[in-house]
């Protein structure tokens, strides 16, 4: 088992994180939010991250992409295609962010710039990374809107975030991450703020991206049901540590850790199996 996993890992490896620690300076001193996390993601694979609120899921991936708050810092390594994101300079990291790695944030309601038109928020990333002209970038934006099942309309391109519903904003966030055809998308609780129907529509989009376009996806959630539906492998976090990891099937059918068992006992029965 171990050797097979090693094999897969070496052939198709996209991102490998080793000994990652994240710290924050706070009024009450230094706290450690992420403790010695190791993980890897293969090409075209969906990795699910579960864990209760505050377990360090978000901060793990913020630190990898250099998006920690100003009072936070990290050590360890995060090798993305032979390139260490953590020790890289800001400039170098920028070439990968938005281009090869897309990030979808936990809170779609506040994650779009309120005073910029949707079209510009989509197109700026392509004008920046792929040197497209404004009109080319807008054309691409319209195509991407199609992928996330939004109408390809000029109207939408010209609207401001406050004119959209939560579900639409989340689709826009996904569209932003797709603008430069990334190899990896990190989706931080992309469905938590949404109603059940919209939730499953969004998950379908991710399924298409992974299966149809071969994009690797990190799906963060505290809903183990969502993970069960979409992920190939799962990683369970608690208190900043990884408590269990393995293929989704293994972890869900024979959990070893107490905490995972507890999480599983919370899923409604119709999602099991």
């Amino acid at each position, binding site marked *: 088992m171990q050797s097979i996993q090693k094999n897969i890992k070496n052939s198709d490896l996209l991102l490998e994180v080793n000994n990652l620690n994240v710290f924050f300076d706070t009024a009450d001193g230094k706290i450690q939010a992420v403790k010695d996390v190791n993980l890897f993601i293969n090409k075209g694979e969906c990795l699910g991250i579960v864990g209760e609120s505050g377990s360090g899921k978000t901060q793990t991936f913020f630190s990898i*992409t*250099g*998006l920690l*708050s*100003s009072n936070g810092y990290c050590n360890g390594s995060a090798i993305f295609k032979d390139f260490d994101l953590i020790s890289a300079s*800001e400039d170098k*990291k*920028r*070439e*990968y*962010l*938005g*281009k090869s790695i*897309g*990030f979808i*944030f936990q*809170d779609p309601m*506040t*994650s*779009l*710039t*309120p*005073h*910029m038109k949707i079209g510009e928020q989509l197109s*700026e*990333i392509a004008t*920046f*990374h792929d040197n497209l002209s404004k009109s080319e970038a807008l054309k691409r934006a319209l195509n991407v809107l199609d992928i996330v099942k939004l109408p390809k309309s000029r109207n939408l391109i010209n609207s*401001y975030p*406050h004119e959209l519903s939560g579900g639409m904003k989340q689709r826009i*966030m996904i569209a*932003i991450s797709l603008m430069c055809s990334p190899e990896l998308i990190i989706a931080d609780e992309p469905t938590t703020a949404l109603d059940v129907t919209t939730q499953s529509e969004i998950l379908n989009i991710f399924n298409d991206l992974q299966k149809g376009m071969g994009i690797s996806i990190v799906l963060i959630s505290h809903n183990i049901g969502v993970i069960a539906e979409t992920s190939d492998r799962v990683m369970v976090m608690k208190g900043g540590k990884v408590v269990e990891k393995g293929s989704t099937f293994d972890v869900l059918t024979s959990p070893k850790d107490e905490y995972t068992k507890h999480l599983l006992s919370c899923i409604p029965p119709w999602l099991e199996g």
Partner: protein
Amino acid sequence: MIKFITKRLIIAIPTLLIIIAFGFIMMRVAPGGPFTNERALPPEIERNIQEAYNLNKPIYEQFFIYIKNLSVGDFGPSFKYKDFTVKELIISGLPVSATLGLSSIFISLILGSFLGIIAAIRKNTYFDYSIMGISLIGICVPSFVMAPILSLFFGLYLGLLPTSGWNGGNIFNLILPITALSLPQIAVISRMMRSSTIEVLNSNFIRTAKSKGLKSSYIIRKHVIRASILPIIEYLAPASAGLMTGSIIVEQIFGLPGIGRYFVVGALQRDYTLVSGVMILYASLLIILILITDILRAYLDPRVKI
């Protein structure tokens, strides 16, 4: 847009009317005012006032006439300068005060916002500390302390700049007054801008912009400034009010023949017509500034409906 502006102007009218009524009533009830009986005035002024205010007509009609005159810019004759109307005095002081006021507001807005943004970006560096330290001086040293000290230091001790006089708007004569006038506003604006920029930099949408791999300078320009400048826009009217009162002091100290100077002289000599004329002028300016604030806010923040 035009509908929005008209609506705002209609709302502003009662405000202006109240201010005008205040000036009108003040002139009538004030002890030693132009319409009390115990006055002993030279006959020419007496006649001027009798004519200008239609004292024989009923009071509501007088008020009506007063407003009508104001609407064509007629503020009536001065109560103390017998050869001048208030309008003439205001017009003679306007170039001085407008030069001072406009240059100060531009300098304060641009320099204050700029310093605030840089301090926010370089938060907790020596640059930040020194900007905030200097701005603290600007806040704690009122203009009537700052102005004489500037004039003492740069004018008398160093002999670099003239300490008083208008001199036809010579730039060297303007440096000290404009500095004294702008410093407190630069201080306030840079602090406001710093804290609002820090708040915006910590917001989720800036994290999104960073996750796109955009250049920081681009993020600041496109994503940050329009959001973080909003409090400064709100502060436009109060800042201008501050400059108006500040200019009263500064004109006094640097011997500049502006509106503020006339206002003080008028106040000290109880020249009620002059004082209420200046008050109405300033109030109208502030109302226009509030209107500009509303328009700018709507332009900068699409969530505001116009």
